[in-house]
């Protein structure tokens, strides 16, 4: 077992945060009895993934990847993960909208958004 390297931890800070957020979101979805909170957890989870991708593409000191022919030789950050995450945000948005619509119709049926109360009413 290697000893804990503080500088390694600091250099990889965004990755640790994203893993932490991902686990938190996953836990919220699985354990919270309130359906709205479950959807919030889902969003936390997906935001963690976005953070991870953006952190991967980041180059410290890099400029935004908008190529200007007049100024050559500039260091740009990697634009590909940002493009991927644009797609990811769209997917996450549609899942959230769909889930909320379903919760609304469940609320119309049962009058509650609590899983434990839903189970009792069945």
């Amino acid at each position, binding site marked *: 077992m290697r000893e804990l390297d503080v500088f390694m931890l600091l250099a990889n800070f965004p990755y640790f945060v994203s893993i932490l957020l991902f686990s938190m979101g996953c836990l919220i979805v699985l354990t919270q009895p309130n*359906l709205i909170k479950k959807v919030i957890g*889902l969003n936390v*989870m997906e935001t963690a993934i976005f953070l*991870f991708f953006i952190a991967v593409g980041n180059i410290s000191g890099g400029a935004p990847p908008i190529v200007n022919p007049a100024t050559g030789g500039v260091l740009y950050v990697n634009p590909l993960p940002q493009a991927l995450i644009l*797609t*990811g945000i769209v997917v996450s948005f549609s899942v959230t909208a769909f889930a909320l619509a379903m919760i609304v119709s469940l609320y119309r*049926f049962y009058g509650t958004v609590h899983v434990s109360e*839903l189970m009792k009413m069945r």
Partner: protein
Amino acid sequence: MLTDRIPMVIIIFSLVIAFLLPIFARWKRSLCGPIVAVVTGFSFFFSLFLLYDVHRGGSYSIYLGGFEPPWGIELHINLLAALMIALITGFCFLIAIYSLNSLEREIPDQKAGWYYTAYLLLMTGMTGMVVTNDIFNLYVFLEIVGLASCALIIAKGTKEATEASLKYLLLATIGSGFIVFAIGFLYTITGNLNIPFIAIELEGTRDSFPFVIWTTMGFLLVGFSLKAALFPLHIWLPDAHSSAPFPSSALLSGLVVKIYIMAFFKILYGVFGPGILAEMNIAGLITGMSAMAIVAGSIFAFTQKDLKRRLAYSTVSQVGYIFLGLSLGTPWGIKAALMHVVVHAFMKVCLFMAAGNILFQTGKRNVTLFSGLGRIMPVTMASFTVAALSMVGIPIFAGFITKYALAMGSIEAGSRGLVALIVLSGLLNAMYYLPIIWQAYFTGNQKEKVVMDRIPLPLLAPVVLLACGILYLGLFPAPILSLISGAVEPVFFP
């Protein structure tokens, strides 16, 4: 060559029609069903053409927009992909014919247009997942499939359907979260999204990142097990598949879960290759999980009284077979798994459609009330019997061929215990299918005259066709087996 563009034509054509249908439904609702049947029928026709072409001319790639990989998205069409496209479009066509008549009995009329939108989107997504060679593109298609299947379940609009659909959506989104995180890890250590290019990069960097490779595999396993309902993570499947309308259940149980499995093993074998897989021994874990799935799914199925729930739990155990065959990694094992993908689609779609016919004519879903059914709906029950006996694994039916191949595969892999497991699972299947057949034919009033089924032809024809297909595959398995071995060789044993 014109055939080069067929996969793209199928994907884009059905995507465009999918979004035109709700508009069209405002003008003439009754025509939506026939239009979808025609679209899927054309796709099926073209995919047969594609299968013939790939079988004769070999595999090829399409570079979207003319950008070559690693920059652009690559669609790779090999024999396996062509076979899966033919399977997907063929079953979508059959189920579209079935839903011509069954849909109006289950779904509010004003939702029909949107239902068919989701239906075609599902077909698009599955076709895309099979052909794409870019893992992020695969993720996008995966989400299309996930959302469209949720829409197909909720279309019924009942309490149970809404609840099951929400449960499915939440768990499936967790699953795709894990998958996209794994894709992120792969991109981090290799800098590529194209499967062959990742594999090349990984050869050089695998020793530097053992933990990342471990984590990636774990995340992929959790994500795809959730999506494909491998045993401990199957909890959403029985609710979702039993509360959906009948055509949706048939489609979800017969095709969708298996497309996820194919995608999983496409990534595992394409990206990591047999070398890393053997080193990490992930296959042993999957074998264990699938062995549990086979036994537990059958036992759960036995305890269910509702026919649809019984069929849904049966899917849990059949998913186990496919995972088992693929995780064995021997030629016979993988052939058995692919054969089971095809045969199980035939059997499960046939069973769900027959269950639908029984409900539509008699209003019965509880399996203890089926006495004398063989006399009032002989054609449906005969087809049901063929499919159920095939599930049990009686010789001359198609199910026997896959069980036999799977047993061959386990002997090849050197684990004789699995042969006993396969025999045991056949007995368990018999335990929950045979009582239904027994009741239908040998109980009730034996003097009653045998009459014809009182259900329209679009509901009856697909069921009979599938039963004939099961008999044909069981009696003459050689052509499909040789096609499958041709499809397996280049992908799994290069």
